[in-house]
Structure formats: structure tokens, C-alpha cells
């Protein structure tokens, strides 16, 4: 029987990796990811998880070791944060380009400079275009569930892509939450042994990572793009099966009190739960407010997004990263682009907030909702507004 107990979310994620029976774990410690790989190294050292734990000299090597392991047919896992993810950037494209299934937990943290160990999404957003399937967890239970699902999605013969699961640094990774840890029998039923479609094998030699001339590069990129977009169908199937075994339901775009809502907050990650409290408070005052949060960031679920916002008149997008010199933040950019061709579309107010661990409170979400409604009424032309920045 699955047991529900209070656990630090990082520890729960490493226990999920153990349940997934990873073969190779390669990682370099970085705040706030440390507890995940620290606990995994203990599990391996104590013989509780039969895996090769490869301690490396950098995150570049950590992901490279996963690439090698996955190419050899192993179930590979790594985790990182911030600067560590930035150092992996080059290898991110190689993992997806080689179509190697693997799973990475990204414990979201701000990028330097200034050095800042606290939470925002400035680490993952520059990795948006690396060809990985990208998921967001909003609480500890989701972090566990998405980790298990990630292996299953990545290894599906119709997908064969790396998958990363985002969870917010500290405000999610280091909190103790009630988590229902699935039992091994359930997980084994959901996640069978990895059977690679192709792997490095001395008896049947193949070459991975050779050069591709202008004659072939375009076709390879087209194939990768189709696989990534096509993976959404598999993600939906995996969630359906997950629900039948574990009883918990996942959707690419999650909705909260959207029925009859004229204004919708749009969030990613654990701040969604704080924003839900703001929605509750505003609803109590009779305001027609709801929330959607993006679970599947890549591939972006356009159809489900349009469906989720069909009744909304105003969208208040909360971005926790900037695209410097651009129109706003990455989420706002995505959403506005998606809506551009729709004749009937909501007014989009975009806010950049919560950078480098700046608190995002219920009051701030309420403020953003009120501002969005006001701007919509005036038809204000806006790029984005930075919330809480000191002017003097």
C-alpha cells in the first residue's frame, strides 16, 4: 500500500528515482538541488538502489555521462539548478538530438549575476529551445508523480526524448509536505524495464553523434520537432494510465475555478498554489477570477490552452524570468504569440515578478489581478510591468 507521510520534497524526488530503478545517476551538487543527489548517493552506497552513481567534476560532465549511459541502454538520471543547468546547455541539445531518453530534475533557481541561490525561472527559460520535454510540478506529490511519469514518457518508443521536471528551489524543494509514496509493485506495473530501440552494442556497431552535412541537417531537425510535438499524445496516454494505477489526474494545462471566470491568472510552478489562495480570496469578494497553470511547457499544449481560456476576457500572465530587451517574459511571449492569430482573444496583461527569490504573496497576486482588469478596461498597450521594483 502507498503510504502518505511528511517528507522533504527533495528526498521524495530521490525516493521516486529509486522507485524508478534508475541504472545510472550522474550529478554534480549545486544549491538547491543538493539534497536530491546527496540522498541518491546514500541510497546507492547503502545498497538500497542498485545503480552506478557517477560523481563528476561539472554539470557538463554530469549530463555527458547521462548521454553515454542512455546511449548504452541504461535508465539515466541527473538533477541540477541554475548555473549548473547553464553549464549543461551545450549537452542539452545533444541529448535530444541523439534521441536519448533520460530524466532530469531542474530545481529552479536564479542565474547570476548577482549570485543568488533563490528561486525564479531564469535557469530553465534559456533551455526552452533545447528539444527536451519540459514539465512543471507545483507541489511535492506532483514532483514525485512527474518524476515517475517522466521516465515512462521519455522511454516510449514513439518519443525517445529527454524529459525534465521543474520544481521551485527552496520554496518547494526544501519544504516538508505530505507525500504519498507509491509502492514498488505499483511503480513496476506503471514503469516496465527500459527496452532501448537502439543502443551502443559492440556486436552491432552504430555511430552516434557523427556530423550531418547541410544535405541532412534540416531533415534531422524536422524529425526531432515532429517527435517533440507528437510526444504530447503519449504524455496524455501516460497520464491516463497513471490515473488508472495511482488515482491522480494530470493535464497539460491545469485549471482552478475557471468556470465563469472573466479574469484568469496564468502561472507556472509552485507559486500557482499561492495564486490559488488569491483566487479564493477574490472569489469570496464576488470577483469572477480563476487560474490556469502550465504543466506541460514543452511541447506547448496550444489546443488545451485555447480551450482553457475560451471564456476569459483578461489574462494576467505572471513571468518569473525576463527575456531582456524583448517584449516581456518567456511565458507572456509564448501566450501572446499563440493568441495573435485568434480574432477573439482576451486582453493580456503581463507581469514580471518573484525574481531571485522575491516573495510572491497572495496580496501581490490580487494586486496583479486588479491591475490587469484595470488595464484591460482602459485598453492599455503594454509590454510588461515589473512588480515590486523599488523606484526610489
Amino acid at each position: 500500500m502507498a503510504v502518505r507521510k511528511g517528507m522533504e520534497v527533495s528526498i521524495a524526488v530521490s525516493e521516486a528515482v529509486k522507485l524508478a530503478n534508475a541504472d545510472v545517476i550522474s550529478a554534480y551538487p549545486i544549491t538547491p538541488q543538493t539534497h536530491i543527489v546527496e540522498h541518491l548517493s546514500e541510497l546507492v552506497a547503502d545498497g538500497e538502489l542498485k545503480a552506478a552513481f557517477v560523481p563528476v567534476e561539472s554539470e557538463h560532465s554530469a549530463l555527458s555521462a547521462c548521454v553515454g549511459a542512455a546511449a548504452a541502454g541504461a535508465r539515466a538520471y541527473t538533477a541540477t539548478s541554475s548555473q549548473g543547468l547553464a553549464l549543461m546547455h551545450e549537452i542539452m541539445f545533444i541529448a535530444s538530438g541523439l534521441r536519448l531518453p533520460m530524466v532530469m530534475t531542474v530545481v529552479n533557481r536564479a542565474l547570476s549575476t548577482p549570485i543568488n541561490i533563490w528561486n525564479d525561472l531564469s535557469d530553465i527559460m534559456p533551455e526552452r529551445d533545447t528539444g527536451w520535454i519540459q514539465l512543471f510540478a507545483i507541489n511535492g506529490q506532483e514532483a514525485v508523480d512527474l518524476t515517475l511519469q517522466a521516465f515512462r514518457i521519455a522511454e516510449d518508443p514513439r518519443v525517445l526524448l529527454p524529459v525534465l521536471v521543474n520544481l521551485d528551489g527552496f520554496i518547494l524543494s526544501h519544504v516538508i509536505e505530505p507525500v504519498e509514496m507509491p509502492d514498488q509493485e505499483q511503480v513496476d506495473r506503471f514503469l516496465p524495464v527500459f527496452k532501448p530501440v537502439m543502443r551502443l552494442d559492440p556486436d552491432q556497431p552504430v555511430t552516434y553523434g557523427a556530423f550531418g552535412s547541410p544535405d541532412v541537417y534540416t531533415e534531422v531537425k524536422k524529425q526531432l520537432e515532429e517527435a517533440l510535438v507528437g510526444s504530447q499524445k503519449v504524455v496524455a496516454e501516460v497520464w491516463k494510465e497513471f490515473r488508472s494505477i495511482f488515482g491522480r489526474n494530470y493535464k497539460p494545462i491545469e485549471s482552478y475555478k475557471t468556470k465563469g471566470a472573466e479574469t484568469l491568472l496564468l502561472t507556472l510552478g509552485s507559486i500557482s498554489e499561492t495564486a490559488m489562495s488569491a483566487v479564493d480570496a477574490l472569489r469570496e469578494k464576488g470577483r469572477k477570477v480563476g487560474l490556469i497553470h502550465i504543466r506541460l511547457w514543452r511541447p506547448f499544449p496550444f489546443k488545451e490552452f485555447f480551450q482553457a481560456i475560451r471564456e476569459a476576457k483578461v489574462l494576467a500572465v505572471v513571468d518569473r524570468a525576463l527575456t531582456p530587451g524583448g517584449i516581456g517574459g518567456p511565458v507572456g511571449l509564448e501566450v501572446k504569440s499563440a493568441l495573435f492569430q485568434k480574432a477573439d482573444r482576451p486582453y493580456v496583461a503581463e507581469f514580471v515578478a518573484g525574481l531571485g527569490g522575491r516573495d510572491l504573496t497572495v496580496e501581490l497576486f490580487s494586486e496583479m489581478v486588479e491591475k490587469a482588469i484595470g488595464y484591460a478596461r482602459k485598453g492599455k498597450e503594454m509590454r510588461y510591468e515589473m512588480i515590486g521594483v523599488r523606484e526610489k
Partner: protein
Amino acid sequence: MAKIEALHPWKEVPLGCAILEAGNARKFKTGDWRSKIRPKTDYEKCIKCGLCWIFCPDMAYGHREDGYFDWNSDYCKGCGICARECPKEAIQMIAEEE
């Protein structure tokens, strides 16, 4: 640029652009990248020391049965390192015939 025998439509590209046939690099005759000069050895001056063979970065020199060394136009890029390293100045870089 060497010609690729079969250009796959995107649906048929091997997964991850892997090369499924071992040793097919042999089919790439990279000598057609050569700049417009090539080496010419004066066998009167050559002392069979093999420095051209040792220094050639493309391993484009072969060792003949009579002890001399021959360049291979399939792989030579015309860099001229062999000519520079030859202690007897037996190798000259000459214009490629069109």
C-alpha cells in the same frame, strides 16, 4: 563535398541521425576539399625517411613496396606540411591541374 548516396526524407532519417553502417567513412573521399595545390615528390632527392608520412595530418601518404612514399589524392588537402617538413626539400607544392 563528398556525395551522400541516399538522402533520406525526414521520416526515414535513422533515429538521432545515427550511422547504422560501420566504416562508411571510407566512402567519403575528402580529397575533393583540397586547395588548389598538391605535393610532388622528386624521387631523386628522396631518402625514404618517411617524415612526410609521419607529419601528414590526414594520413594521406602511403608507404610503397620500394620504400618510397606516395600521396593519395583521395585524402590530401594540399596543406603543404609534407613539403615544409621534408629534410631534403624533395617535395614541392605545385598547382593543381584544372
